[in-house]
């Protein structure tokens, strides 16, 4: 939803209440992007935190021409890209093994073990996609956006979005099968299906 002139003015002037409202309104969405686009080797909360830190540093320059979510998505893409690169560097120099070294806040005792396992399986499947395909699939199939919406957020023509989605789905389906996700019990019961860990 576009910002009203009053909301935009309050945000760009750094009004704490407006910033807080904006933060609460978009935090879950940005955190979701961080989980789905960032993969298992990066910390989604750190990603989301950095996205908003950047957004609030630059908010005085936000003219409100784009949807706030589109603007935040662009920032998220960049932050995710940087974080993934840093994680790859750590693996490269041998400071991290595979994709499970980073202690995640999800590993706290208050979290559901099965939820954690499932998330990891999906993240590993998403890792098999090219970045451009992953972005399209996340926006359209996991978040339910239309192709024109995704095209606007990604800055590409709708035809490109369709094309990427086509290949993304094919690759994702195969990856889900390999990771045991397609054998999940989706009736509500939790099934122990193994899969990648």
């Amino acid at each position, binding site marked *: 939803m576009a910002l009203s002139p009053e909301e935009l003015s309050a945000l760009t002037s*750094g009004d*704490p209440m407006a910033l807080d409202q904006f*933060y*609460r309104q978009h*935090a*879950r969405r940005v*955190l979701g992007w961080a*989980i*789905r686009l960032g993969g298992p080797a990066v*910390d*989604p*909360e*750190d990603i989301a*935190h*950095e996205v*908003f*830190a950047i957004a*609030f540093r630059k908010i005085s320059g936000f003219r409100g021409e784009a949807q706030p979510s589109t603007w935040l998505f662009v920032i998220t893409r960049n*932050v995710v890209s*940087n974080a993934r*690169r*840093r994680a*790859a*560097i*750590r693996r*490269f*120099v*041998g*400071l991290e093994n595979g994709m499970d070294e980073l*202690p*995640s*806040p*999800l*590993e*706290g*005792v208050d*979290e*559901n073990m099965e939820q954690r396992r*499932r*998330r990891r399986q*999906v*993240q590993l499947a998403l*890792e098999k996609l*090219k*970045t451009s395909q992953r972005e399209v*699939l996340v926006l359209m*199939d*996991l978040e339910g956006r239309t*192709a024109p919406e995704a095209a606007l957020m990604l800055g590409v023509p709708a*035809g490109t979005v*369709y*094309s990427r989605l*086509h290949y993304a*789905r*094919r690759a*994702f*389906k195969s990856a889900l099968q390999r990771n045991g*996700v397609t054998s*999940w019990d*989706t009736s509500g019961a939790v099934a122990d299906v193994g899969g990648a860990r």
Partner: protein
Amino acid sequence: MRPQDSEVDALGAFGTAALQEAVTDATEPSDAELERLLARRPWTEPVRTSRPLVLGGLGFAAAASALALVIATSAPQGGVQPVGYGPVAMDLHMEQALGAQVVELGPSIAMSGDATVVLDQANEAGTTLTLLEGRAHFDVDPNGEWRDLAVDADGVIVQVHGTVFDVIRDGDDVRVEVERGRVSVTWDSREVFVTTGQSWDRPTTEVAAVWTPPSDEGLSVDLPSVQAQPVSSGQQAPPEGVADDSVVDAVPMELAEAVDEGIGTDEEPVFRVREGSADHELAQVLALQASGIGAADLLVETDQVLGRHRGSGVGTELELVRLQTLARVDPNLAAVEMADWLDANPGASRAPLVRFERARVTHRALGRCASALRDYRELADRADDIGARAAAGAGLCAAELGHNSIAERYFADALERGITGTLQTEVQAARAALRD
């Protein structure tokens, strides 16, 4: 022809709507994650204060206070008016001779020497000056403001962000001597890095020096062969008391070549890291950490890079490296800095790791088990590897303090959670001693 909507729909990856929903749900943020994120409030981040360096401490303060001489006050032309520290001590764009005086070029750069220079710019965007003749000595605070400095000596550009070095020009001969830190020297579209104790002379002939890569012993990765680099000539022995940085410089340079080729495998994306980028610098530091070099060398290098990246994601990674390394050099200061870090970053996802490191240094290096036990016990509630290691630490501390039943519980917990290596051996021995 692109697929139509209906065709795309038919290509769904999930098969059933239920599976699609389950996959979506699996990657939805949990309420706990969202609450933690909301508590962080990025627009009220505490301001991080720079701390004095432990090693490679600057002589800047002393130098600046010794003979600071204000020649004239002049606002930079077209630049930002200097504020907050006193006047820039030179006129801009005027040829000036340095005498026996220290000139402050902003809050972080002190210059002295027997030289003739022209100050081209001095503001928060950076300080640039031209060395016309003579030897100029620079002391740049790597953690200070306005620390970016470029010196042009007859087309040889020396760039720094915090170090101590000299540039000498005698006609066409240009020499750079680095007392501490690392500077970039660019000439004729070529670049070298000159580090602590090294000097560099502009080549008079185009002789490509061949750099022999150092042993990669200690590196846990196979590095590709390295292209020959123009290297510093006239390398001198480092001054007494200063670590020889040849390894410090060489290992990351080698890695940097590998990184430039892209890192990754067939199973994961290949990332390209641009030369000179923040990630490139981070890779260099992490490579040093992985190579197992001395803590003092690593700390100096980390501090220098950190000075340029505080507040960013790279900066956070570097802060962790710094704290871990500092613990090996000065445990007392490390414990204090870790406490400061935790105060400044209460909700950070890296906070448990830092807290564990604080407990470990308090316990192992400082021998304060009672303090360490508090951290250990709270961390032991975590279900991850940090929790398991904290349980082991809690057991060891409890045993040392004579709380045997508590120690036994933590020992059992740690072993059940699968601690390995020397920690496992230590816990097993301590447990056996308890039972004896």
